[in-house]
């Protein structure tokens, strides 16, 4: 009998060895609340189904390495591309635009940016 579990997805966690639980609730950052709300609007409108989002999450190679909302965001991206609701090019362009929005003029270097560079 093979030792490797056959077709066990990275999400199928029941029974896996794991460490102590951080029993504190760390809440949600604003962008996470917004991401959750976006998902909720899309699924209530029937544009993406919860089952599709789960399937897309389970297929992520990086599933085990990503935090919860990183998984859900990546899964949504997979689906929006799959359904042709956005294109890779559009997404790349929009992300670049948003990155620029968080920039500040060079002579007024943001402490946030400075810290990030360290």
């Amino acid at each position, binding site marked *: 009998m093979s030792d490797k579990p056959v077709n066990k997805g990275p999400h*199928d966690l*029941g*029974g896996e060895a794991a460490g102590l639980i951080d029993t504190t609730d760390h809440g949600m950052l604003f962008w996470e609340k917004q991401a959750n709300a976006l998902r909720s609007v899309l699924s209530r409108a029937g544009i993406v*189904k919860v089952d*599709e989002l789960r399937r897309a999450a389970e297929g992520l190679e990086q599933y085990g390495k990503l935090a919860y909302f990183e998984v859900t965001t990546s899964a949504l991206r997979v689906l929006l591309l799959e359904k042709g609701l956005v294109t890779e090019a559009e997404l790349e362009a929009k992300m670049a635009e948003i990155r620029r929005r968080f920039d500040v003029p060079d002579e007024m270097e943001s402490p946030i940016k400075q810290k990030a560079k360290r």
Partner: protein
Amino acid sequence: MTGAGADISAMRSSYAQAPGHRFNVGDRVAVKSVFPPGHRRTPWYIRGKHGVIERICGAFPNPEELAYGFDGEPAKVLYRVRFTQKHVWPGYQGPGHDVIEMEIFEHWLEPDDRADGDAKP
């Protein structure tokens, strides 16, 4: 079993009885020991395990189809099945009356045909 076990025979469905359901509350069932790829809502750890029907939940579109953009029709009957923890996990640390329950679709279940001596979960 304790109070948790006494509930079974009195338990009715929470929602409308699914027409044409194969199993009834109290039936002994086995979860199929199959490991297909794709989106499944039957956890890996419960495959091949034996339990008892705790409740008939109703009929729902098949998530295994919904996941790929199909409508999941015809709806499949969904049951809640109760399992003894000591049966599910060899080496379970806890009393024999601890249980775990979950929802299993009808197409993942078979009758538990084992003889009585082996069958009591």
